[in-house]
């Protein structure tokens, strides 16, 4: 419970406010809107914000919403393609698999942003991150001939643009 007030800086306060708004929106989504529930919702939001700040201290990165929308569009398109890709291979007569490992360089430094990017990458078509060696992402691919690395590089550019350099 301690420590939040003591090192209050503008970026920390901003991060707290930003996350609190997100968490309250999530609360409204799961619990619905009722005036009598408001105090409980605010208390839960405060607890969630506290936990979030304790587990993931703000880094000062800023979210750019336009770029975030572009990332989301790229990601959704990729997820749909990934589903079609798997479906096509599974239902084709000869499976059409050429599995193997591919490496892709990572520009994001180790940390939360990289972890989040790897999560996005695990839903990309045809590839699945299975490990990191230094700054290299090791991917398992359904078809090593697919341009997996360039796809991920494009997604990483969008990701860095959306969540800012750290």
């Amino acid at each position, binding site marked *: 419970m301690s420590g939040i007030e003591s090192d209050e800086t503008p970026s920390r306060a901003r991060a707290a406010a930003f996350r609190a708004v997100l968490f309250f929106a999530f609360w409204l*989504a799961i619990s619905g809107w009722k005036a009598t529930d408001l105090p409980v919702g605010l208390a839960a939001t405060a607890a969630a914000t506290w936990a979030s700040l304790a587990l993931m201290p703000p880094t000062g990165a800023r979210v750019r919403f336009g770029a975030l929308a572009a990332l989301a569009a790229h990601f959704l398109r990729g997820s749909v393609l990934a*589903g079609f890709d*798997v*479906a096509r291979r599974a239902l084709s007569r000869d499976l059409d698999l050429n599995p193997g490992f591919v490496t892709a360089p990572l520009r994001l430094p180790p940390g939360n942003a990289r972890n989040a990017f790897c999560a996005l990458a695990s839903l990309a078509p045809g590839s699945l*991150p299975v490990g990191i060696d230094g700054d290299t992402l090791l991917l398992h691919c*359904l078809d090593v001939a697919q341009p997996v690395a360039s796809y991920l590089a494009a997604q990483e550019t969008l990701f860095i643009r959306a969540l800012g350099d750290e």
Partner: protein
Amino acid sequence: MNFALDLFSIAAIAAGAFFFFAGSVGLLRFPDSLTRLHALSKADNLGLGLVVLGLLPRVGSLLDALKLLAIWALVLLSGAASAQLIGRALRRRGGDE
């Protein structure tokens, strides 16, 4: 209008069911654990997304719709994390079997 929305629901849910089907076929047919993991994590998340999309016109309010989307988002997050966790465990054991 209602008819159009119903048609949309039916199309989206049928597409979602198709991806669940394809994912299971992949699980049955793919030759090794890592490729099966692809089938599981890619097809089923899309299947659930389409089912949620199909159910959206049937909910009572905007907040109910957001709740369905929140459930899907949580499944996506869990799916992405578990796929990586399992994939990594598989690679540590030297891969395929």
